[in-house]
């Protein structure tokens, strides 16, 4: 028997989750959960809708960075000019998820906690060093996005816990990010490979900081330190791009499926990473 509750505070939501007698599911945008309810893949006893909690939807600027409420739909991210300016890669990744209709509901927290290896927003968030604020019975903790997903469909949150917000830090000058994915058509598909790159350049255009993250080529998104090392110290010359390509390919541990073979995914991971890095460098140069 399914029960539904829409608490008005974070504390009440935590109590509901902690006290649930069976399986409890957090409802944010619902674009994955409702599909799973209908297919029978998810059989929760309790649904805790977090959207009536104040501050759970919306974007606030804080200390030059951003606090994004867990239930903020993708369409709202895309309409936030300041966020698009500071974190174009995060916004483009979030806006790639599904159709206009899906964008009206789907959230970053849902995309993360659904724990699909191919989730588009996750590589971009990790590349951006985004953190999430997790509320639970023991209060709140702030953890890196990469600590949440432990495997396909699996997350590290306790049964009493849920994500209340994401934090994106203030950007240094000459910093930018980018996300690219490959799908076999122009819209409405699931990534064969996704690549998120975030860089900071010095005044001469040499990279001083980089994060490179791949999606859909392993059980979880991969933060590839070797790929970042290939960028740092370079102005993205041909040699650096080749090292980046190799490092990205070496990191892949993909599966064969109907969307792509292992060989294809590995090859494309290198290409997508190069292209995303090129866009991120170009954007960074335009932000003196």
């Amino acid at each position, binding site marked *: 028997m399914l*029960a539904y509750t*829409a608490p008005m505070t974070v504390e009440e939501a935590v109590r509901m989750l902690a006290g649930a007698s069976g399986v409890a599911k957090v409802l944010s945008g*619902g*674009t994955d959960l409702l*599909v799973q309810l209908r297919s029978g893949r998810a059989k929760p006893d309790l649904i805790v809708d977090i959207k009536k909690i104040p501050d759970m939807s919306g974007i606030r600027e804080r200390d030059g960075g951003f606090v994004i409420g867990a239930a903020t739909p993708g369409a709202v991210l895309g309409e936030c000019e300041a966020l698009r300016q500071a974190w174009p890669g995060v916004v483009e990744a979030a806006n790639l998820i599904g159709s206009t209709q899906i964008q*009206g509901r789907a959230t970053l927290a849902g995309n993360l906690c659904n724990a699909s290896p191919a989730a588009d927003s996750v590589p971009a968030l990790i590349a951006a060093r985004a953190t999430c604020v997790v509320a639970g019975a023991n209060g709140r903790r702030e953890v890196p996005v990469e600590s949440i997903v432990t495997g396909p469909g699996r997350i590290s949150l306790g049964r009493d816990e849920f994500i209340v917000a994401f934090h994106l830090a203030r950007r240094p000058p000459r910093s930018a990010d980018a996300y690219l994915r490959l799908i076999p058509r122009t819209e409405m598909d699931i990534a064969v490979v996704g690549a998120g790159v975030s860089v900071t350049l010095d005044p001469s255009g040499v990279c001083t900081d980089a994060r490179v993250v791949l999606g859909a080529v392993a059980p979880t998104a991969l933060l590839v330190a070797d790929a970042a090392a290939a960028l740092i110290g370079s102005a993205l010359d041909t040699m650096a791009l080749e090292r980046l390509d190799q490092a990205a390919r070496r990191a892949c541990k993909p599966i064969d499926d109907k969307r792509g073979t292992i060989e294809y995914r590995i090859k494309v991971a290198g290409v997508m990473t190069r292209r995303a890095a090129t866009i991120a460098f170009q954007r960074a140069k335009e932000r003196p």
Partner: protein
Amino acid sequence: MSKHHVSTTINGEPAEFLCEPQLSLLDVLRDALNLTGSKEGCSSGDCGACSVMVDGRLVCSCLMLAVEADGRAIETVEGMARGHELHPLQRKFLEHAALQCGFCTPGILVAAKALLDRNPDPTETEARYWLAGNLCRCTGYDKIIRAVLDAAAELRAGSRPQRAP
């Protein structure tokens, strides 16, 4: 199973219903409220035939629980015409023969109205991307896009015919 009492607004009118928590908004619109304009195509958010507006956002009503409608403003295809006067999009769909079986049409009309409400002068590319979540297996989309762009042009020109008395 306990039923939830939901107070909402549908096409500007207050509406109340009782529903079980697992029912989608689409289930309740069609089966309880007899608003059968919204169609059930895929029930997984892929086809857009159930598109409605919720607080001004285009969503799939199959991907929203009916209980979530509490306190929200819902707009469906039934709210588009004014009495016997069709919305310009509806009229242009007829003029351009932008439908064959018609199953996808209500969802596309709602989605296209959402587009024109925020972008009165979309390019063809913008219209095609905006409507990428609305599947049509009959028309090949071309006539749909022509109808949407023609309706946009008419709305911009303000050449809407006078309302019938």
